[in-house]
């Protein structure tokens, strides 16, 4: 299949490169961006063509950097967009939607980017899939590599949640725990890429293609809203890549005629206080992002030196969005709030998003008259440790198996007549 990619281009100095396994400009080290022929895409794509496609990210193949008759695919994408009226009422908002990416095959949005990255990597001839990960990416790379019959080597910080380690190791690849933070792991992988040029590090040498997978979040949101853009989207920030690609996705829908014009979508960012280099720069009104040493329960966002931080700042400012950083206590509270009101169990990153949404709603930065979408990007089963010992995280009561014990423990004031003991 023919794709619509014209090549790669440096975001900083605009030098052009061929569509190979390159991720940074070899002149200025700026990130490379996939360049498309939007006129040709506009001629090929249509809402009907997309709606007739698979119920996965691959329905948007015309807008992705790789085409393949049989992509490396576990069914990523086309996750539910859920109207969240009960949560909206709690937060004083009007039309609120949750993009529920917990429903992806390995439980996070990373399946979107990995499916794209490994499809491209396989076409480029790579036999080994690798990555630096805070956990979700590790799960997804190991699973997709298994699916594609590729070897996998994933590198993670040594202190990840148990579930994320098990959910990676089970697929049979190599899992290397590194004594250090994610930023140490990332630096090691960036160096390994030079020494292992035959390995596809999805978020290093294949990152240019990988990152494009996040655009599908914007495509799906618009399609699921009936081909309308939202007014405001709240996105968690780790590296900042997802946020910038969501913005790119909405813009492309206008460029290729799937929306009547490029929509004005405000994009706001969410970080945890214990790792908030982007939120800090946003609130200080500076472009200088100072790296930090992360300390937060939101480990999937614990990137102290965010590669796309500048671009995330630029998108938030240009779009009229906002940014906030929330405490770990607020994260735990928000996980519970989302679960109680909407029946969605988010990992800590989702708690960061919902807690930030609550902050921005309270400050008026997210308005009641806006159509708002919050991205919940990973499943709560991955980070149950974060809730252990907090109120509401265990049994309501532990009782002997008798009716008397049950009645003593459970007092439903609205429901006392259903069970009545017969007279003896």
């Amino acid at each position, binding site marked *: 299949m023919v794709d619509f990619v014209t090549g790669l281009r440096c975001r900083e100095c605009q030098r052009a490169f061929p569509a190979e396994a390159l991720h940074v400009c070899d002149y*200025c*080290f700026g990130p490379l961006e996939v360049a498309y022929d939007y006129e040709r895409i506009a001629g090929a794509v249509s809402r009907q063509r997309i709606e007739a496609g698979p119920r996965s990210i691959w329905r948007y193949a015309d807008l992705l950097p790789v085409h393949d008759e049989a992509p490396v695919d576990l069914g990523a994408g086309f996750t539910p967009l859920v109207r969240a009226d009960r949560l909206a009422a709690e937060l004083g908002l009007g039309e609120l939607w949750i993009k529920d990416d917990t429903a992806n095959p390995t439980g996070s949005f990373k399946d979107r980017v990995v499916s794209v990255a490994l499809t491209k990597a396989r076409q480029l001839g790579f036999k080994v899939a690798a990555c630096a990960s805070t956990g979700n990416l590790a799960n997804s790379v190991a699973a997709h590599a298994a699916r594609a019959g590729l070897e996998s080597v994933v590198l993670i910080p040594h202190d990840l949640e148990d579930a994320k380690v098990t959910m990676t190791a089970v697929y049979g690849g190599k899992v290397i725990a590194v004594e250090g933070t994610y930023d140490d792991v*990332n630096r090691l992988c*960036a*160096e390994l890429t030079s020494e292992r040029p035959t390995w596809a590090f999805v*978020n290093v040498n294949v990152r240019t293609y990988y990152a494009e997978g996040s655009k599908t979040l914007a495509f799906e949101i618009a399609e699921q809203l009936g081909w309308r853009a939202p007014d405001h989207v709240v996105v968690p920030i780790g590296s900042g890549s997802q946020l910038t690609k969501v913005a790119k996705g909405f813009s492309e829908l206008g460029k290729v005629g799937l929306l009547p014009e490029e929509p004005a979508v405000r994009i706001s960012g969410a970080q945890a206080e214990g790792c908030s280099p982007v939120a800090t720069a946003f609130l200080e009104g500076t472009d200088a992002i100072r*790296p930090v040493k992360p300390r937060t329960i939101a480990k999937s966002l614990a990137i102290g030196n965010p*590669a796309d931080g500048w671009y995330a700042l630029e998108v938030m400012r240009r779009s009229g969005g906002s940014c906030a950083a929330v405490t770990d206590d607020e994260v735990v509270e928000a996980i519970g709030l989302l679960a109680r009101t909407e029946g969605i169990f988010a990992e800590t990153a989702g708690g960061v998003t919902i807690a930030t949404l609550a902050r921005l709603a309270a400050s008026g930065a997210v308005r009641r008259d806006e159509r708002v979408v919050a991205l919940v990007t990973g499943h709560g089963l991955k980070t149950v440790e974060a809730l252990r010992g907090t109120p509401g995280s265990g049994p309501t009561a532990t009782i002997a198996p008798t009716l008397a014990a049950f009645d003593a423990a459970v007092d439903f004031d609205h429901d006392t007549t259903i069970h009545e003991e017969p007279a003896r």
Partner: protein
Amino acid sequence: MSLTIRIPTQLRTLTGGAGEVQVEGATVGDALKALDSTHAGFADRLFDESGNLRRFVNVFLADEDVRFLDGLSTPVEDGQTLSIVPAVAGG
């Protein structure tokens, strides 16, 4: 001080393909300038107009980001390794 500088793939055209170069210098900045004097072209790639590290260039001394240390003024010890690494990775 004698130290080893690790060169990423993207800059190995300047070193004839070598992944490591030995240089002398008392600080991180000195060492990188020494690298440029033996392998012309590095300064242009690593530094912006005001002489600071370009924003997409990370430099690690003994595996620590020099921005957590004293940047280009960070003193180096004999035998240490300095790594030049593209910043755009991960996430």
